[in-house]
């Protein structure tokens, strides 16, 4: 096993109307979704979401939370017709999640593809903003995770795993990894504490909002490891690990490393190849301490008393990965894995020597460099509102106004995927997962699809009284290789379904 597995990224975007902080974010988010949908000719009333398979209260530890006890924010499976919710031709889901528009990428099989379809989501959101700007003041969207006033919203990663891997093993090895990972993948934040009461700069947007080690909640008492058990796939075979702790990333390298290193650690967990127990004495406290230390010099205490910096913790995982890959692949893993291992070592080495060396790869380093530049030039301190303004506007999705995008256009970041590839991913699905079937059906037969979800497409065939639900519980079926020719020769959904029936009959 390598960095390759079925994976995806869901991003909740910050949303704001210039000059109107009390504007209703749920309605605005609906406008963002509908504006894009109508531009693409996807009627939101059609190609809506199939909620049949949502089970947000099922816990990976083996029970289901009593619905009556759940916080309203956990009931993500109730169909509300006023909530805009569409599936795009690239297989992504674009919808309103509580009070934020969310882009949930299609399923991909590599970190590079995850990065590509995540950036495609940024383009989708930017397009929506452009359209809505025709009616001033328009709506602004931000690829970030907090307003600095106590609210936080997520960028979630999803990793398909084998069901048979004990959840306790996942927790044991991932907790220390996530405490440390933010030194590579944190996006930087002005302000310490959930409501930024202490002036300063920290590595991660999200860390202050995490209060427990393991749990089912996603909107309060956030856990380092989320136990939601909703595979959207054959439940006996698969687990979908739902990771909520990460920041939204802009840098290609940081994003690649986030998905790639995590996937590799999961591979080692699945193969029982992690021979070091890096369990921390106080994981939640360490999570906060690491985030609050941009010098990267503070150590965290392991349960056995050893003290390591976060970078040293990550080197431990890297060494285990290196050994694991040598044993299995004689030091010659696939190109995706080699790419992740290369950047992992490059970034750790830079962070260890002098963090500013990583300004082209790591989001928090680049942001800190700009902020410290302002402090030096204008004699500010960390409580100056201009610094918080830079922090917020860093993630504005508009290429002409978003600070990250302006700096990227000036060539200040390492680019792994070019704009042309990302542009194609806005409309085209990944070829190697069921997203291919979903996205292609939506492109070819938009008027004959009643609803779609991660694991189904529901067709509405003219002349037929009942809807036809095609289950897609295998994420690696429905690829271009397996169904491409069949789709190519089916001019309408009726033909497609007939062909599918005879192929399986």
């Amino acid at each position, binding site marked *: 096993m390598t960095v390759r597995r079925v994976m995806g990224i869901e991003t909740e975007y910050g949303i704001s109307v210039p000059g109107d902080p009390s504007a209703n974010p749920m309605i605005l988010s609906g406008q963002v979704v509908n504006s894009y949908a109508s531009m693409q000719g996807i009627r939101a009333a059609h190609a809506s979401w199939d909620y049949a398979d949502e089970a947000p209260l099922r816990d990976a530890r083996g029970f289901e939370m009593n619905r009556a006890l759940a916080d309203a924010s956990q009931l993500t499976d109730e169909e509300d017709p006023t909530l805009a919710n569409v599936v795009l031709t690239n297989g992504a889901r674009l919808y309103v999640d509580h009070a*934020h528009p969310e882009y949930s990428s299609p399923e991909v099989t590599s970190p590079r593809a995850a990065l590509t379809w995540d950036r495609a989501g940024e383009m989708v959101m930017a397009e929506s903003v452009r359209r809505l700007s025709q009616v001033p003041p328009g709506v602004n969207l931000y690829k970030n995770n907090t*307003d600095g006033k106590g609210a936080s919203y997520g960028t979630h990663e999803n990793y398909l795993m084998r069901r048979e891997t004990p959840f306790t093993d996942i927790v044991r090895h991932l907790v220390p990894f996530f405490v440390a990972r933010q030194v590579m993948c944190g996006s930087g934040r002005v302000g310490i504490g959930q409501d930024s009461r202490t002036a300063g700069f920290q590595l991660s947007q999200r860390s202050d909002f995490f209060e427990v080690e393991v749990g089912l909640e996603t909107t309060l008492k956030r856990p380092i490891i989320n136990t939601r058990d909703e595979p959207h796939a054959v439940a006996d075979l698969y687990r979908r690990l739902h990771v909520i702790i990460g920041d939204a990333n802009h840098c290609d390298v940081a994003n690649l490393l986030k998905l790639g290193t995590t996937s590799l650690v999961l591979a080692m967990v699945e193969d029982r190849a992690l021979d070091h127990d890096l369990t921390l004495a106080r994981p939640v406290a360490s999570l906060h301490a690491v985030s609050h230390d941009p010098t990267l010099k503070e150590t965290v205490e392991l349960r056995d008393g050893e003290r390591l910096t976060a970078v040293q913790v990550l080197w431990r995982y890297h060494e285990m990965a290196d050994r694991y890959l040598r044993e299995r692949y004689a030091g010659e893993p696939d190109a995706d*894995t080699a790419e992740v291992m290369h950047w992992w070592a490059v970034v750790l080495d830079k962070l260890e020597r002098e963090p*500013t060396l990583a300004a082209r790869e790591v989001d928090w380093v680049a942001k800190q460099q700009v902020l410290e*530049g302002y402090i030096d030039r204008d004699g500010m301190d960390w409580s100056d*509102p201009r610094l918080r*303004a*830079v922090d917020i*506007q860093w993630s504005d999705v508009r290429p002409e106004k978003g*600070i990250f995008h302006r700096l990227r256009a000036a060539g200040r970041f390492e680019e792994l995927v070019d704009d042309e590839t990302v542009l194609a991913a806005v409309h085209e699905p990944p070829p190697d997962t069921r997203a291919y079937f979903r996205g292609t059906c939506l492109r070819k037969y938009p008027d004959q699809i009643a609803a779609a979800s991660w694991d189904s497409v529901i067709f509405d065939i003219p002349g037929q009284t009942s809807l036809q639900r095609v289950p897609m519980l295998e994420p690696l079926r429905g690829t271009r290789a397996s169904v491409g020719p069949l789709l190519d020769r089916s001019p309408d959904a009726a033909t497609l379904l007939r062909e599918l029936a005879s192929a399986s009959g």
Partner: protein
Amino acid sequence: MPSQEHSRPQRRDDAPDEAPEPTPAAPEASARKEDLDSDIDSVLDEIDGVLESNAEEFVRGFVQKGGQ
């Protein structure tokens, strides 16, 4: 994409190709700082051009509801 060469960890004593040659700490640090300073100044000028004009109002107006 890099070629599939060694994936062994590159540590301080085994610096990767793109690192500068090791020099005494103080001169290296101040030389880099000077480069960064002029470099950053032009970056700040560019950002000044797009930053919202009233920072306090902008920050105050950015209020979100909690999400997942």
